[in-house]
């Protein structure tokens, strides 16, 4: 970690090397250790540290972007020259007016020394606790455990400067028997919050309960899907629909429908980059402070999120959700919260007359029909048949193909418990479990 003073010093030095009207620079620093385990032993154990600088320059409305992890003075000069050369070859972007002249974003405390300084020995000790739980029943454990320190600094030629640092710790595990598997994961800003034994215990219980699954016919079932399964859905919903680009182009399920009810009244989804219940990042990659944006409010499509350029197309201000320049998508929510309900997951399962409990979805794809949010995907790591409120037996995995607008219009119960799940890039989702009526399972597999 370079720290605020040095990071901003590098960026400001870089900005002095750029002979153009406007420029902005972002520094992304990461130091991350990750321990992977499988067959109840550690098989991969890695550490990386890197500092990447992104430079965006504007010659009038012509924009050039260059990126490098070389931070010595000569390399910074080359970076500045390269970005300027690219701008020369560009065509003017009519929607570019200026880089952002933003106030300092609020400070959010999200950095824990204990996480940043976590050793591979400590990660191994946590992994050992998970494996011990699996081995109590003769099962094998696989998974990963990471500890990461991130910093992001931003400066532009208009005088805007920002800095934020954070930590995150994450563990997932799949515990496996010859005929079944069970899953659990945990994310936090602080490694001290971890109870690895509990993570192992949860996955082991699901694995034990899902042994010798029976085949079940595809068709429509009422389902209780865990927060881990909801998290997978939210990532795809966000990708296809909550960013300004897909909205403006008419590809999003939100396009032309703002103010219209597109989900059930009990559904509210928002993005909040300042909330420490998630993995906060108080400003975006254009240095704009993140606003709390209501995406779905009581089932009504309310807003999508913007960067400066997509906002200008609609005469709006950026909401502070720019992704780094050069990405396929220019703006996305990365700190999603799904409004919790009033029920325990146990109550939700007890309310099923005839239905399924899903631990996790696998390989969801949301590109079948983005206007309807038609998704497909598989269940994995523990699927159970329930009758009259009681889990009867585990079932083999099923494929679902279903519109998420329909699914989220049929949510009968929402858990009060919400689960934090770290993204594998930046940010996180905080989501509850859902009970959904008439969920369509379109196929089945052999295990």
């Amino acid at each position, binding site marked *: 970690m370079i720290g605020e003073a040095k990071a901003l010093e590098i960026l400001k030095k870089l900005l002095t090397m750029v002979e153009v009207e406007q420029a902005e620079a972002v520094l992304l620093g990461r130091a991350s250790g990750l*321990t*992977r385990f*499988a*067959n109840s*032993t*550690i*098989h*991969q*154990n*890695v*550490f*990386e540290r*890197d500092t990447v600088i992104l430079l965006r320059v504007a010659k009038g409305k012509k924009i*050039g*972007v*260059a*990126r*490098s*992890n070389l931070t010595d003075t000569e390399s910074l000069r080359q970076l500045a020259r390269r*970005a300027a*050369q*690219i701008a020369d070859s*560009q*065509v*003017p*972007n009519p929607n570019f007016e200026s880089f952002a002249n933003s106030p300092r974003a609020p400070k959010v405390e999200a950095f824990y020394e204990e996480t940043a300084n976590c050793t*591979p*020995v400590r990660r191994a000790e946590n*992994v050992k606790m998970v494996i011990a739980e699996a081995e109590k029943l003769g099962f*094998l454990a*696989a*998974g990963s455990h*990471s500890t990461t320190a991130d910093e992001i600094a931003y400066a532009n030629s208009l005088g805007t400067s920002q800095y934020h640092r954070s930590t995150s710790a994450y563990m*997932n595990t*799949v515990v496996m028997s010859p005929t079944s598997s069970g899953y659990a994961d945990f994310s936090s800003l602080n490694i001290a919050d971890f109870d690895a034994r509990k993570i192992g215990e949860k996955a082991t219980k699901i694995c034990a309960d899902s042994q010798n699954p029976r085949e079940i016919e595809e068709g429509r079932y009422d389902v209780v899907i865990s927060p881990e399964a909801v998290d997978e859905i939210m990532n795809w919903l966000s990708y296809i629909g909550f960013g300004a680009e897909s909205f403006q*182009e*008419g*590809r999003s399920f939100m396009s032309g429908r703002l103010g219209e009810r597109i989900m059930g009244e009990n559904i509210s989804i928002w993005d909040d980059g300042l909330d420490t219940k998630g993995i906060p990042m108080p400003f975006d990659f254009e240095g704009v402070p993140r606003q709390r944006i209501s995406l779905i409010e009581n089932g009504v499509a309310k807003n999508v999120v913007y960067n400066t350029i997509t906002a200008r197309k609609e005469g709006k201000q950026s909401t502070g959700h720019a992704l780094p*320049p*050069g990405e*396929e998508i220019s703006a996305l929510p990365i700190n999603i919260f799904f409004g919790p309900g009033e029920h325990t997951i146990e109550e939700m399962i007890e309310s099923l007359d005839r239905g399924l409990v899903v631990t996790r979805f696998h*390989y*969801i*794809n*949301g*590109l*079948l*029909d983005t*206007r309807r949010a038609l998704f*497909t995907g*598989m269940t994995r790591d523990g699927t159970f048949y329930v009758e009259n409120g009681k889990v009867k037996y585990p079932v083999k995995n099923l*494929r679902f*193909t279903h519109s998420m607008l329909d699914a989220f219009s049929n949510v009968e119960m929402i858990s009060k418990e919400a689960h934090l799940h770290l993204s*594998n890039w930046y940010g996180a989702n905080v989501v509850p479990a859902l009970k959904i009526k008439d969920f369509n399972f*379109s*196929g*089945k*597999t*052999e*295990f």
Partner: protein
Amino acid sequence: MKDALKNVLASIKNKVDYADARLVTTRSEKILVKNGSVDSISDEISRGFGIRVIVNGCWGFSSSSVLSEEEASRVAGEAIEIAKATSLLKKWDVVLSEEEPKVDTYRTKIIKDPFSVSLDEKIAILLEADRIMRKNRMIKVSEGSMQFYRTDKVFLSTEGADIEQTIIESGAGIAATAIGDGDVQKRSYPTSWGDTATRGFEFVQQMKLVDNAEKTAEEAAALLKAPQCPSAEMDLIIGGSQLALQVHESCGHPTELDRVFGMEASFAGTSFLTVEKMGNFRYGSEHVSIFQDATCEGGLGTFGYDDEGVPAQRTPIVENGIFVGYLTSRETAAKLNQKSNGCMRADGWNRIPLIRMTNINLEPGEWELEDLIKDTKDGIMVDSNKSWSIDDKRLNFQFGTEIAWRIRNGKIEGLVKNAVYTGITPEFWASCDAVCNSKHWHIWGIPSCGKGEPMQVAHVAHGAAPARFRKVRVGV
């Protein structure tokens, strides 16, 4: 820096069972054009090194972007400490298959270095294709992209390997999205992820993006008016680019031996192709033969040596329908008393190598596509992937495609839209009764194969020609 890494490896040789170092510099250039303007041009350089060690039979790895002998020494020490932490839960010693250490150099054969071509020339092609697509009034989003990569890497090991490679990759593609009456239909060329190869700028020129722009737009617009693809069990002809993804998901991934051994279990999953099946399991019909081939010229999965210093090879995966071999590393091959077939690659200097697909190629058959269509009474022909999903053992899959054509009594009746087909991998490949000949065969580059934690993106490819599958479930 290479000398510094050599010195560090020499200094730790007595402290480790094995160590290797990779020094990697990657330069990439990406151009995105959208709706008549250049959406973004970006240029990236990433340089650093990683040191991988086996200590007390256990792996450790660390990496850094600070290039100095002092830093390399510190990183080597860190990797050793990480390996010691790994050994706290050791169940067995890592054993590597034998490999003669090579001293060699390799460079991608190209005609025109893509980094020597001006941005103006590249942008002009994309803008012209974009202009032509937008002439069609139904097209609401027109897109084009080019991407170029140059990777210089040095591989050194305590066994004495010293390999320098330069890999150059070029790729491009265009897409048109038609929107109307609440429907969205996209058509792309040459396929939905473009096409990328270990070739120079000549590869992009040969694509003729401008010449194909009008047809791409017309097909997207026509799909808006096309009837819905029927839902039924019927014969299916899969075009080469979609079949490439089918091979990728249902043959490439399940034959990665690390997956088979459970090493990816918590993330991407495992595999139905367990080791007792090797040599006796019927994976597909006698028409199905699949090879991994890192040696074929121009394939996106082509290189001189993998990231363990193992030479690129061509080895059988499926021969006449029988599953016969895996994609392996030195560690996993040793468990089967084999030598590695050279499939270990890392996504940059800060990642460890994992088993990755190279060019996983379905061998061409005998058929002309025209004859295959004439020979099909009731079916559809699909191409260009739109959606993909497969279970965590790689059995149940569902694919959606951008475009499909209804075939009745040996003739194409017209377009149908939103085609989806599904199946179980070995049943599906067993239903393959015809593969088109080498005239229709092309190696499709896929530059976005994700695997591992932290996530690594690999550049892989699949040779395929159109093929027919009998009685496939089409529709949801």
